């Protein structure tokens, strides 16, 4: 791409095309579809965190007059332990099935065991009480420390730690051990004048989307089955659901409803296969909607983690060695985001001597799901806290220290390749020069700064643009729009076609209408689906030129296209896009462009955050008084929604740092499964979140887009954590900084 592109539409703050429906209540979300003859499904969940299922007797529930069907694991048919692409990367089908409905063991409080479909939701709930499950209760293992101990109760007898030269012969709760290293870590520390080493803990936290998981499924023996659901990836829902029910992909249509938040948590299936299995048995459409407590106990949290970080530096601020250790909870089945944790931990730094070791550990909590830059916030929290302490120890400004060691183009990463063009230095400079950083800190307040790195991904996106005879068009994309991405798709297509964005209607098409598209996640949609949109729009332009050329009896190469008008360079004629579309009938049929791609070249997005907090010294309560989020967008297609991603990520991170955590009793039962006691930030908890958009273009995207959805959740943990410590003159090592923990730090050090 050229350095300074001139844009007609990109970079404007247009009104989003799906906005009207959303402010009027017309938009239909997961729970908003009802079908004729529809009945309701509800799920029986385990009261125990760890138990063998001795028997399940569903006969009484089946005999209930309002009940149409009861399903258990057996209704999934034969499921084998193969790997499929099930949303957030490869997943083991058997694990997926066992998470949807437990097989011979329940592995967490809230683990689904059976489901009932009945005439009303209340009748279905009543019938759940009639299912008789006999358990042999086992001791739960609730954190990595206990789970990794010799002799700990083992969740899976067939799990042997991967990642050692010799695979152990006894099963354990450690699924995987991973080590990455480069340079000479010992020599690096030997060179250091200052070494800081600390141990950290982060809690189990939930994505906290406001819309509970919901779906309506209709099984059709003639091959017209349909699932309507709120998901980040309806093609992946189709893959998983079809697999569990033994269907061909063509026989199941999945429709992505509007989605009320996901943040990674709606990348996997929970109820969808169950609802379709119920519908198959009942012969009726089945709706399933989770209660809020089910969302907390049985879906998505992200990993609680225990981490160690050790950083050495010379007096002049040169970082000489960085070492990390982490153990991430995977929940009931293997697959925590430990790997990206290892990969991202020290990536903001250009240091040659790095070593990181990570462990993926199963515990008796619900299986973790992706959460915004999965794995990175925990690891980078530990790293950034220690880097701040290094700066403090050598008496250097923390931004200067970071600038001195900042990762840049050519920096060797621990995971292999060298970085291409990145914008960390630009973000740090913007932070240093910001009004926030230059402002004096109020009395009794503390200030924290932290950086964050996330890869971003590309992947498969499929797009069609169907032109209408009046020159308007419909953009069909396969990536569910969670945060306003339809606006960006509209703008990018408009930029290529050089017509008003409002002439293009972007829709999220169902799985019957487009080839496979990867889900919305990894900050990929504006980047990858955007590239597919551009390709599809360029395809339209190509056809516009060809049609005009045919009319003018010239070659397509002799036709130019500018400002929405085809121009005959060999003559005088001009035709607007609308005129060419109008003539399509006579020039070979309607015009439609496609862009089916597997995008590569995703550009990492670095973020730098500044946080001021005030701490009540008598109660330990923390108030965020000022906050600034700075991030490299590559190119902001729609600046308002880019800022929105920065702000949303920042506030989720603030919540994680301050008050959000799962609380379990001794039996492994979650004690705060609701918004009352799982305390996400409120409007009254926060100041305005200031934003600075840095634009260092990603050369792999035609407009320079990087993707901005995830990096913003990484820096807040350390920015807040350091700020709190600064305000009370202590070192924070454990999140969240809830009032009792902060008061105890103040009083006991």
């Amino acid at each position, binding site marked *: 791409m050229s350095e300074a592109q001139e844009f007609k539409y990109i970079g404007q703050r247009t009104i989003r095309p799906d906005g009207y429906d959303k402010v009027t209540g017309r938009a239909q979300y997961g729970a908003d579809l009802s079908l004729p003859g529809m009945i309701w499904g509800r799920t029986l969940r385990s009261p125990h965190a760890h138990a063998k299922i001795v028997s399940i007797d569903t006969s009484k529930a089946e005999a209930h007059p309002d009940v149409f069907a009861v399903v258990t694991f057996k209704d999934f048919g034969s499921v084998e332990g193969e790997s499929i692409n099930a949303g957030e990367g490869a997943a083991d089908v058997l694990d997926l099935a066992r998470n949807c409905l437990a097989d011979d063991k329940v592995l967490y409080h809230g683990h689904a065991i059976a489901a009932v479909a009945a005439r009303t939701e209340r009748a279905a709930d009543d019938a759940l009480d009639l299912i008789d499950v006999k358990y042999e209760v086992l001791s739960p293992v609730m954190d990595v420390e206990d789970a990794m101990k010799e002799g700990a109760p083992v969740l899976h007898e067939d799990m042997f730690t991967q990642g050692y030269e010799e695979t152990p012969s006894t099963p354990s709760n450690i699924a995987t051990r991973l080590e990455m290293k480069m340079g000479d870590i010992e020599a690096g520390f030997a060179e250091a004048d200052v070494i800081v080493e600390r141990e950290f803990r982060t809690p189990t936290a939930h994505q906290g989307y*406001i819309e509970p998981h919901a779906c309506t499924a209709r099984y059709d023996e003639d091959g017209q089955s349909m699932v309507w659901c709120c998901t980040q990836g309806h093609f992946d829902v189709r893959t998983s659901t079809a697999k569990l029910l033994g269907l061909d992909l063509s026989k199941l249509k999945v429709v992505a409803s*509007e989605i009320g938040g996901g943040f990674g948590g709606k990348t996997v299936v929970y109820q969808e296969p169950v609802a379709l299995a119920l519908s198959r048995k009942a012969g009726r459409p089945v709706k399933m909607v989770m209660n809020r407590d089910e969302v907390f106990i049985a879906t998505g949290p992200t990993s609680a983690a225990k981490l160690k970080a050790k950083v050495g530096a010379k007096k002049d601020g040169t970082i000489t060695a960085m070492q990390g250790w982490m153990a991430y909870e995977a929940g009931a089945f293997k697959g925590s985001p430990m790997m990206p944790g290892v990969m991202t931990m020290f990536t903001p730094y250009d240091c040659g001597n790095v070593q990181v070791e990570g462990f993926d550990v199963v515990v008796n909590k619900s299986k973790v799901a992706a959460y915004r830059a999965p794995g990175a916030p925990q690891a980078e929290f530990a790293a950034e806290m220690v880097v701040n302490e290094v700066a403090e120890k050598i008496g250097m400004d923390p931004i200067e220290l970071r600038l001195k060691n900042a990762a840049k183009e050519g920096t060797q990463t621990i995971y292999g390749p060298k970085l291409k063009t990145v914008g960390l230095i630009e973000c740090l400079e913007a932070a240093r020069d910001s009004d926030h950083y230059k402002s004096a800190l109020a009395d009794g307040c503390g200030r924290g700064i932290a950086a964050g790195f996330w890869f971003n991904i590309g992947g498969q996106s499929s797009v069609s643009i169907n032109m209408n005879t009046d020159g308007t068009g419909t953009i069909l994309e396969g990536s569910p729009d969670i945060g306003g991405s339809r606006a960006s798709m509209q703008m990018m297509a408009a930029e290529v076609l050089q017509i008003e964005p409002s002439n293009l209607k972007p829709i999220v098409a169902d799985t019957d209408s487009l080839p496979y598209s990867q889900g919305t996640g990894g900050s990929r949609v504006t980047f990858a689906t955007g590239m597919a949109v551009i390709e599809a729009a360029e395809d339209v332009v190509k056809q516009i030129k060809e049609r005009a050329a045919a009319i003018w009896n010239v070659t397509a190469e002799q036709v130019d296209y500018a400002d929405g008008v085809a121009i005959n360079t060999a003559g005088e004629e001009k035709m607007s896009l609308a005129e060419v579309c109008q003539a399509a009938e006579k020039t070979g049929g309607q015009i439609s462009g496609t862009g089916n791609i597997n995008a590569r070249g995703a550009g990492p997005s670095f973020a730098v955050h500044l946080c001021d907090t005030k701490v009540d010294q008598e109660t330990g309560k923390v108030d965020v008084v000022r906050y600034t989020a700075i991030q490299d967008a590559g190119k902001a297609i729609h600046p308002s929604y880019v800022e929105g991603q920065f702000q949303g990520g920042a506030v989720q991170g603030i919540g994680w740092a301050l008050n959000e955590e799962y609380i379990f009793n001794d039996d492994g039962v979650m004690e705060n499964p609701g918004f009352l006691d799982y305390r996400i930030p409120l409007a009254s908890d926060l100041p305005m979140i200031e934003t600075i958009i840095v634009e260092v273009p990603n050369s792999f995207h035609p407009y320079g887009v990087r993707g901005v959805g995830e990096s913003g959740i990484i820096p807040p943990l350390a920015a807040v954590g350091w700020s709190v410590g600064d305000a009370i003159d202590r070192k924070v090592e454990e999140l969240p900084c809830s009032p009792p923990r902060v008061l105890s730090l103040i009083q006991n050090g």
Partner: protein
Amino acid sequence: MAKSHVSTSINGEPVEYLCDPGDTLLDVLRNELQLTGTKEGCGSGDCGACSVTLNGRLVCSCLVLGVEAEGAEVGTIEGVGANDKLHVIQEKFLEHAALQCGVCTPGLIVSTKALLEENPNPTEEEARYYLAGNLCRCTGYDKIIRAVMDAAETMREGA
């Protein structure tokens, strides 16, 4: 148990329905009357997605029984704005990009309308506290508060 017959008014129109006396107003709105603009986020009054007005007071419809609407006036998101024109608050939410996923938006708009009817000139802090019961997980509230303050100003100018 027989269902109860309820006569009420929703968004100014007379409505009659049958409901189980244990059903919440939210159940009735969504499942009986297909007014699905009112969302359920928690069912316990902690998220505000189901905000409606009941005789002019802002309430969570998940904490009101359907039978309690007898003779009352209920206001939902479907009644905000005219058929062909958005309410200023709705326009400002769009203009300021005050929504991402949009599932909290109907509740926030109903609440903002109630706020500005009670207090046409709120401070930022008053707006933040009034709306504290409307959880939003996407935006960090910044753009919502800007939209609310701008809507308040525009409405004052128009009044």
